[in-house]
């Protein structure tokens, strides 16, 4: 598990609009990489190109290369469905399947992959929920609907669902933006634990969060309204927040932006 991501010359489009332009970066395995930047700079779009979720929007397309170790995710014979099985995703708003129980939510990905054996599923449910720090809270009500949990619990359920299929990479698109500070703390602690097993990429609007959870930070920006977003710099988080090499990064981080 946990593979390196190597992106080169990647641009993403919505119809004829170019959302991000010519991005190249390397994301290290077993580490947390945070994407920060102003709204509309394309960090979420870029995140979604890493598991080919970008192209599920009608008219959206991608140019360039994303290597997961030595496999190009945009290669000619690569099935996007298979890509999404090895690159998991957690969304901004908690989105457990409302029609499923907690148990069924966790094993949804495995069931899609054809795993049916009850003993296997039971084991995965316990391991994934424990991995998501949710087991103790829900172990007595696994057959209750997932939508009945609190927002923070729902988000941890979604993380459990994502890690249940044992992906190589875990993408998180502002996973705490709909949560209160306590739940946010729980998720941040969890991210710290998960990075020993997974390559984690997290988009966040909260710079303190980026500073707290990430090892490396990438700053994205756009030249102006209607311009495509670009990667400004990627460096160790400590360096980005203390001594960035680009002026725009320092302006953004210190709040002297715009």
């Amino acid at each position, binding site marked *: 598990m946990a593979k390196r991501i190597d992106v080169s010359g990647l641009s993403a489009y919505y119809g004829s609009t170019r959302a991000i332009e010519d991005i190249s970066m390397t994301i290290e395995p077993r580490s947390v990489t945070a994407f920060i930047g102003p709204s509309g700079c394309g960090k979420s779009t870029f995140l979604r190109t890493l*598991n080919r*979720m970008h192209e*599920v929007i*009608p008219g959206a397309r991608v140019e360039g290369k994303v290597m997961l170790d030595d496999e190009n995710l945009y290669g000619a014979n690569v099935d996007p*469905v*298979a890509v*999404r*099985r090895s690159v*998991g*995703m957690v*969304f901004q*708003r908690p*989105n*457990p*399947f*409302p*029609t*499923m*129980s907690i148990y069924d939510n966790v094993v*949804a*990905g495995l069931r*899609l*992959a054809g795993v049916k054996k009850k003993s296997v599923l039971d084991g995965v449910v316990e391991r994934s929920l424990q991995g998501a720090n949710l087991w103790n809270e829900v172990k007595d009500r696994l057959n*209750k*609907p997932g*939508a*009945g949990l609190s927002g923070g619990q729902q988000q941890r359920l*979604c993380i459990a*669902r*994502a890690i249940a*299929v044992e992906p190589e990479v875990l993408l998180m698109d502002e996973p705490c933006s709909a949560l209160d500070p306590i739940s946010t703390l729980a998720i941040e602690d969890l991210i710290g634990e998960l990075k020993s097993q997974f390559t984690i990429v997290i988009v966040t609007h909260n710079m303190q969060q980026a500073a707290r959870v990430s090892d490396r930070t990438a700053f994205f920006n756009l030249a102006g309204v209607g311009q495509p977003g670009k990667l400004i710099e990627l460096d160790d988080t400590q360096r980005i927040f203390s001594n960035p090499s680009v002026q725009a990064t320092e302006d953004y981080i210190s709040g002297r932006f715009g």
Partner: protein
Amino acid sequence: MTSSSPADARGRTPRRRGDSRRGDAVFFNLSRGAGVLLLVVMAAIAGFLTYRSALALGKNEGNFLTTFEWTPDAVKPVFGIAVLTFGTLVSALIAMLIAVPVAVGIALFISHYAPRRIAQPFAYLVDLLAAVPSIVYGLWGVLFLVPHMNGLTSWMDQYLGWTYIFDQSSSGVPARNLFTVGILLAIMVLPIITAVTREVFRQVPRMHEEAALALGATRWEMVRTAVLPFGRPGIISASMLGLGRALGETIAVATVLSTNSKLSLHLLDPGGGTFAENIALKFNEAQPLGRDALMASGLVLFVITLLVNGAARVIIARRKEYSGAAA
């Protein structure tokens, strides 16, 4: 008083508040009145039907539930709903078996598969089907569908005859039977089921679909894990709307069905009847007792429809906590 300058408004503040409260009261009473009116109408229909039914049932010399004949105006009045109940339920059942899967398929095609420029006109086309009057369906059924059914019915007789219900006692007669009626009803209820399920499918939150896709679901798996479970209560409601129409459809059935009231489990044999069809055919020539007898059959249809709707509500309510309404 509705439009006033600011100066006016300040001067008349108490008056305006009074107005708006009166408006509240008027609106409250209007809406409550509408609700009460509905109950009154329902009660009036039920009461009227029950009263007239009671008159007829008192004079019936046969068993109302098990009698095949419908001769209330004979010297010895005998009438029963066996044929009608069977015909109504069977034709509606055939219609639902055909229409629901097709309608769900069409709705999914429109909401999740077709490109937008095709989906829009296609949805409009399906809606148009609902605007065709019943009598037109009836005429199409008897002039086109019936003559073209023979190939299918003789095929079914040959290969599915062992099921008994698809066994044809005499081949070559026009297919003015319950099976043809079921097919016709399926076409008639298709647009309403499609329209309602389509709207439900469109309301599936994008985030649930993305959740499925991000787990590595193919498009069909995404539909199965996110769209269909979310739309399930909507599919049931839509089917009930369609079933209501199929149970009560009158003129199209009356046009297609051969008027020989014999009860037969052979669905491909001509004849049979439904409640609504029977009322439409017999009402004009019926004597007072005959009319009351028809009312009694109408009451039964009314009760069947209520039961069906009640059953649907129970099914939907049973899985309420999983409905997605909380999300």
